[in-house]
């Protein structure tokens, strides 16, 4: 029943000297994080006249100040939104205006983008710059140090912050059409999701989690939120571009939890000199964002012999939907499992009713982790949230197609609009891509459908290869050996790279639009 920032005060009281965050060679204790969050909250009140419920947009890399601002904003009774540091000015301006942000927090290296966006967002009263603000700063700009310097320390804590049904954060997510949408989560929503996830991960206060995932991405953000809830340590890095820099931290910090996305897994499994001592302390690995190819799951298990591998599925709108108990992985490597603890999911027909095992339908989610809607976007909200069992309840229609096996385990089939039709048969690009990934030499793969008067969609595999010797004939032969005939691509195209989202998902929709010769969906251009 407490607001989420309460966890920080509890951890600081329980283990003040324990490291909350390890970043760039420095360690921030719980006591220090707690004190800094209070200073930031005071700064919001004193320097920005921040009112209860106002929004603070955090436009920073993964760094300690990002965590301070998240908890500081909550402590001031506000709502935070972390925006990816690679966002360009147009999109940032959209977000600032959409949520009517009162305060924008940024860093010197991002200041030009931040200032350009803030100039177009009249609601923004202060732009706080970590590191020294550049000379050409607008009047609204203020340095981090000045911001934390207040005449009346404790002014934020002196006023009521609110209750757990208050809005805590907005997570902007790209919509299938148009502009990004702000997913609204209350303190209670976060508590529900964090409790459920820490339950199945069996999270402990002596955990050390290494995360390179951006804090703007809910998967990255929850690493921080859950560590603080447990009083555990977060080793925060901002990139996995140089795995040789990051992986040794697993050993030196005795990391126990290592969250991955598929592109990271793809990098890890192909490292030739992986030092087994790196993997020793890791007791769990998680994956979400997109399913791991079964070949990569097997390899990860080999590299991390002491780790349980959790395949999970989720979407920002309910944080996490399903998890596969690790002991099921050998039996059903392609399943994303069952509903997370304290929630329900089912595969539904067009009317929202459960369908029998084996039938493909839309996944529907029910529980305390389901968002309150999209910020000031009633139309999109009504699409995603539909009436539930009780008059007060809404259930989440994910737009993702699943099937369930006889024992109740779920399989991701594809995005509702991803499905291709080849010779009248439904083809899930995911399924074909998994087969492509199992072929040594394939680094990345995407399946698209080229419109064809006879076939419906003529399937084309777009492949990034590690091995130049791998030719189209070998790929097609491999597909023929592993797929039903109608799923076998007609053609193969080789590329140097595939387009990706900022979270590392391959943007199939961009490639599909290209194959159909139609303009890119608007949000894909902006993304």
């Amino acid at each position, binding site marked *: 029943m407490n607001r989420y920032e309460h966890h920080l005060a509890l951890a600081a009281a329980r283990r003040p000297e324990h490291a909350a965050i390890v970043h760039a060679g420095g360690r921030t204790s719980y006591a220090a994080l707690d004190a800094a969050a209070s200073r930031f909250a005071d700064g919001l009140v004193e320097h920005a006249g921040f009112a209860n419920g106002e929004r603070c947009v955090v436009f920073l890399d993964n760094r300690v100040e990002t965590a301070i601002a998240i908890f500081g904003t909550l402590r001031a009774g506000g709502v935070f939104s972390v925006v990816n540091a*690679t966002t360009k000015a147009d999109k940032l301006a959209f977000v600032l205006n959409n949520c009517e942000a009162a305060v924008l927090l940024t860093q010197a*290296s991002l200041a030009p983008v931040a200032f350009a966006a803030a100039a177009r967002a009249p609601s923004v009263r202060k732009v706080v710059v970590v590191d020294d603000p550049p000379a050409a700063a607008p009047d609204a700009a203020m340095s981090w140090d000045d911001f934390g310097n207040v005449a009346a320390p404790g002014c934020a804590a002196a006023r009521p912050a609110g209750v757990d049904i208050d809005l805590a954060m907005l997570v902007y997510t790209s919509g299938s059409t148009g502009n990004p949408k702000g997913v609204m989560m209350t303190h209670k929503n976060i508590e529900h999701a964090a409790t459920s996830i820490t339950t199945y991960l069996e999270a402990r206060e002596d955990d050390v989690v290494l995360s390179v995932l951006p804090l703007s991405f809910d998967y990255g953000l929850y690493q921080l939120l859950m560590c603080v809830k447990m009083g555990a340590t977060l080793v925060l890095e901002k990139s*996995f*571009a*140089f795995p*040789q820099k990051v992986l040794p931290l697993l050993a030196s910090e005795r990391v126990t939890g290592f969250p991955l996305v598929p592109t990271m897994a793809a*990098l890890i499994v192909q490292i030739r000199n992986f030092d087994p001592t790196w993997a020793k302390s890791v007791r769990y690995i998680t994956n979400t964002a997109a399913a791991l190819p079964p070949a990569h799951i097997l390899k990860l298990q080999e590299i991390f012999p002491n780790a349980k591998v959790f395949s999970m599925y989720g979407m920002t709108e309910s944080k996490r939907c399903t998890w596969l108990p690790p002991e099921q992985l050998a039996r059903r490597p392609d399943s994303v499992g069952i509903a997370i603890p304290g929630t329900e999911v089912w595969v539904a027909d067009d009317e929202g009713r459960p369908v029998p095992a084996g039938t493909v339908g839309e996944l529907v989610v029910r529980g305390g982790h389901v968002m309150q809607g999209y910020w000031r976007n009633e139309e999109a909200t009504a699409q995603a949230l539909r009436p539930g069992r009780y008059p007060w309840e809404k259930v989440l229609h994910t737009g993702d197609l699943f099937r369930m096996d006889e024992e109740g385990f779920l399989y991701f089939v594809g995005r509702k609009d991803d499905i291709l039709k080849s010779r009248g048969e439904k083809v899930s690009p995911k399924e074909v891509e998994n087969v492509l990934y199992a072929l040594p030499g394939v680094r*990345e793969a995407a399946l698209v459908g080229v419109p064809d008067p006879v076939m419906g969609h003529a399937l084309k595999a777009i492949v990034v290869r590690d091995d130049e010797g791998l030719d189209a004939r070998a790929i097609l032969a491999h597909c023929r050996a592993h797929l039903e005939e109608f799923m076998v691509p007609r053609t193969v195209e080789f590329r*140097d*790279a595939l387009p990706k989202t900022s979270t590392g998902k391959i943007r199939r929709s961009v490639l599909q639009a290209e194959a159909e010769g139609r303009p890119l969906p608007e949000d894909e251009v902006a993304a």
Partner: protein
Amino acid sequence: MAATQEIIHDFIVTTFPGDGTDPDQDLDLLEAGIIDSIGVLTLVTWLEETFGFMVDDEDVLPENLGSIAGITAYAERKLAESGSAA
């Protein structure tokens, strides 16, 4: 020497155009958002193909691959090691 740097510079600006501005040779390409983790892999593959040496896993570090100057120095060192200076 200048030739190696030019080849590398041309590869970076054509493969990773970023926001279109010409990167300074000491610019941190990751910090500037010009290359990401997949970009690093693309760069490694290209170096191996173009210069004919192997990039060892333990060489994939910011000091070797993080800037045009760093990549140039690394490539020249590897070429010198293999005795086929460009």
